[in-house]
């Protein structure tokens, strides 16, 4: 056992010595592995960072949420409150929040702001979206009636109200006075994300009937269906489709049901496909690097034929010679691999800052890089090392 460790440590020492004495050649050989590993790590990290980000957004928006749009038919536009109650009774449905919105103007402090998004929701919306930062959400009786209370977002406070402490004050929106009862925090919902653009004056949330009154709508054409924890979103989706088919008498294009969860699944498979495709392309670079290693090791073996013969004459077993050369190729490719990982992370960092997404170091990718380069060292070093170990000491000693 001690002999084995001695063999490994001697091999490492000799390999380092040999790599040092052939600096230029070793560096050029390492370059192949460096580029290969860097491109594998870089591409995989970028793809993963980007798709993780997008998927994160999707699942934040749509975890357990099914969006239903019901333009309806010419005979029956949208859904009535009664229809929605029918949908609410479907097994696995936790709640349905009608989603209606319109653009209105607001008056504050004598000034008029034209670009205010008014969003109508009901209580179940708040049960599934934790957005209240300050104040409170609607009470049930407020949400179901025409109560003039509103929850303002940050853009609205910044652009229109121009101060923070606004709860309890009244603002004139779309011709009615609304009591501000809450402030919503960072926009995690879609409409807030829309209102994030610069010419928007922000958005306010009000009980949905207020919006329906404002838009003269009798029916609801847009709603979020929330699925109970533990219930299958897919099952609920199927049941919704059946019920809507019944309501619209199987008319074409009367409604659409969007299950964000299934979108996330699609995204997931797109991600893994992209990852393996790009990883595959980058692996070609790694393969080329491996061939470079093999080439250098073969050169090294034939250059050092006499040295190998001498070592054998002095008592080096074939296995020891093989370990020595294998170690040299592994060290070479691991060195290339480590530099490649650093390079790949830099590429990934630059890539993710260009795409403006958070950069995360993927330990999996690093492990992959180390594993890949070690594997390349072993696979492409094996043949030259084997050749060295099988040299006949007599012929080897005699070669000039």
């Amino acid at each position, binding site marked *: 056992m001690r002999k084995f460790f001695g063999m490994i440590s001697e091999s490492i020492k000799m390999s380092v*010595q040999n790599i040092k004495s052939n600096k230029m050649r070793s560096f050029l050989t390492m370059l192949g592995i460096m580029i290969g590993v860097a491109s594998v790590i870089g591409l995989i990290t970028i793809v993963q960072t980007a798709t993780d980000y997008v998927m994160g957004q999707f699942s934040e928006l749509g975890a357990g949420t099914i969006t239903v749009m019901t333009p309806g038919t010419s005979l029956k536009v949208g859904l009535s409150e009664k229809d929605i109650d029918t949908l609410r009774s479907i097994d696995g449905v936790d709640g349905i929040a009608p989603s209606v919105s319109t653009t209105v103007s607001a008056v504050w402090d004598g000034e008029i702001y034209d670009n205010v998004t008014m969003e109508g929701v009901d209580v179940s919306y708040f049960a599934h979206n934790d957005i209240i930062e300050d104040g409170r959400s609607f009470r049930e009786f407020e949400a179901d009636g025409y109560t003039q209370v509103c929850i303002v977002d940050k853009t609205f406070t910044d652009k229109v109200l121009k101060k923070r402490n606004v709860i309890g004050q009244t603002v004139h929106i779309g011709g009615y006075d609304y009591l501000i009862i809450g402030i919503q925090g960072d926009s995690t919902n879609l409409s807030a994300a829309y209102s994030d653009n610069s010419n928007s004056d922000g958005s306010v949330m009000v009980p949905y009937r207020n919006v329906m009154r404002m838009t003269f709508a009798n029916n609801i054409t847009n709603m979020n269906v929330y699925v109970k924890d533990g219930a299958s979103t897919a099952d609920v989706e199927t049941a919704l489709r059946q019920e809507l088919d019944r309501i619209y008498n199987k008319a074409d294009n009367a409604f659409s049901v969007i299950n964000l969860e299934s979108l996330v699944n699609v995204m997931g498979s797109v991600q893994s496909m992209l990852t393996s495709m790009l990883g595959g392309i980058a692996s070609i670079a790694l393969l080329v690097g491996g061939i470079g290693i093999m080439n250098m090791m073969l050169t090294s073996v034939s250059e050092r034929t006499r040295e190998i013969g001498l070592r*054998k*004459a*002095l*008592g080096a*077993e*074939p296995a020891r010679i093989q370990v020595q050369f294998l170690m040299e190729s592994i060290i070479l490719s691991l060195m290339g691999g480590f530099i490649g990982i650093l390079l790949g992370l830099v590429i990934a960092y630059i890539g993710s800052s260009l795409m403006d997404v958070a950069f995360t170091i993927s330990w999996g990718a690093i492990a992959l890089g180390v594993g890949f380069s070690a594997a390349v060292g072993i696979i492409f070093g094996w043949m030259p090392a084997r050749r060295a170990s099988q040299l006949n000491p*007599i012929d080897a000693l005699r070669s000039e």
Partner: protein
Amino acid sequence: MSNIALDNSDKILVMRDICKDYKMGGETLHVLKNIDLSVKRGQFLAILGPSGSGKSTLMNIIGCLDVPTSGQYKLSGRVIADEDETSLANIRNKEIGFIFQSFYLLQRQTAFENVELPLIYAGMPEKKRKERVEEVLEKVGLADKMYNLPNQLSGGQQQRVAIARAVSTNPTILLADEPTGALDQKTGAAVMDLFHSLNEEGRTIIMITHDRKIAGHARRIVKILDGIISEGDVEDA
């Protein structure tokens, strides 16, 4: 098989009817023909022969770099036949100290590291190794050149490093192949002096040479010509 002669224990090397054939194309070349040779412990033997006489092949077999086609070879009581590469390497490490015409030192390693090499292969721990290397380098008079690279040493000094390397593992036989071939006469003589003093310490030395004068330093000379040994039965010259 009668092993009476082989079991004589003061003979550390016994060869019986050794033949070595090489196949060249369709022809078989008989390089060594029925060699009988035995060497006593502490002997200083020269194998004298011109090039092409088979002396290098004989040296390879003695040095366990090669195995005979037929015949029996016993070294330190161990029969060397059909051994695999690994055990041959171990035998070489333990039994044989090689000294080559052109020294064969690793150019990128210091004198110390060159001498250390066979001890590493023997699996000696580092501390003991250091002591041993210093001891043998001192013996060949290179205590002050221990950390020089071979190209910082003269030819004679390089050959002395090689001799130190050969004796480091305390082998049964020192096997020298034209040890003075690459040296001028004066340095060559100094190397031969070193051989004499090693022999006086009781080391067995087998020297292969084509130079009658160099062979004259040995206590016993065996001539080889066309693969046949002569005067081989003279046990003590």
